């Protein structure tokens, strides 16, 4: 079966189906994280006291730098494809994958430190919302890594037969990845600094 509008734009929307689809998905993601941010506000404003300095700001800042760096490499992976430079695309996509892995390793050390100190979600409201928000975000990082691994591995074959469709797929992956970065941009000050 031939799926229509994977490369060419639909006459009614002016968009390829994949692009409109990923934006609708991201809209649903905004609502998911929005509901959790709203929950955070309710819990924080309702709490008699809220802990400060519980989290390691420097580890959080390092992870922010890592994710921003990965956003740059991700957009460069797409731009390299648009310029027809396959080698640079592979390099940038691999860098994005490695940076996302570094983010998770960093997060593992943070979680491990909490675990050894007995700071688990059942200990306080702050820790409960912290683990919920960062855990959900971490799952999104993992999901992005699976998609990137696919395009670094078996999914790369598509470039030989349908380079434009492959380029579009990398663009959609990038849109998702930038959204994951965007969520962290808000999570970092809300959880680590305020």
């Amino acid at each position: 079966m031939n799926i229509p509008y994977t490369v060419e734009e639909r006459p009614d929307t002016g968009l390829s189906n994949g692009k409109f689809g990923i934006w609708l998905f991201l809209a649903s993601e905004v609502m998911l994280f929005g509901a959790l941010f709203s929950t955070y506000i309710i819990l924080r404003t309702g709490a008699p006291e809220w802990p400060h300095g519980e989290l390691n700001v420097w580890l959080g800042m390092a992870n922010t730098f890592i994710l921003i760096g990965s956003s740059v490499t991700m957009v460069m992976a797409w731009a390299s494809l648009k310029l027809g430079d396959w080698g640079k695309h592979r390099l940038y996509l691999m860098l994005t994958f490695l940076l996302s892995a570094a983010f998770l390793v960093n997060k593992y050390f943070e979680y491990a430190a909490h675990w050894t100190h007995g700071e688990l979600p059942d200990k306080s409201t702050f820790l409960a919302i912290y683990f919920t928000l960062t855990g959900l975000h971490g799952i999104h990082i993992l999901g992005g890594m699976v998609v990137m691994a696919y395009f670094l591995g078996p999914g790369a074959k598509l470039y030989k037969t349908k380079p434009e469709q492959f380029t579009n797929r990398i663009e959609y992956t990038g849109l998702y990845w930038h959204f994951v970065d965007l969520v962290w941009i808000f999570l970092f000050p809300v959880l680590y600094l305020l």
Partner: protein
Amino acid sequence: MHADQASIKKSIRSYMMIGAALFVFTGITVAANQVHLAVPIAITVALIIATMKGSMVASVFMHLSHERKWIYGALILTVIGFFILMTVPLFTTLDHIGTPIHVAAPASEHTVH
């Protein structure tokens, strides 16, 4: 050179500049936190910087500065939904469900009689 490729090469410069700006703003956010401002000011500063960073990612990396109207339409609906979600906490402070208004009532009745 193809016109599309020329515009991509031009965009790469802006990707790098935005990336650098995001690093700088992250540094400023952490530096502001080290100053130990009053909580309302700290929250305002941190959220303003985060909003600026988020806008840069969305407009440049996600190309929202020049997208089609269908995407803007979908996002406007999302923004409306998001603000409704953000007003939910307000309703929890405006209502009086769960407050012990009936506990104090008998005592005041006794004083009247």
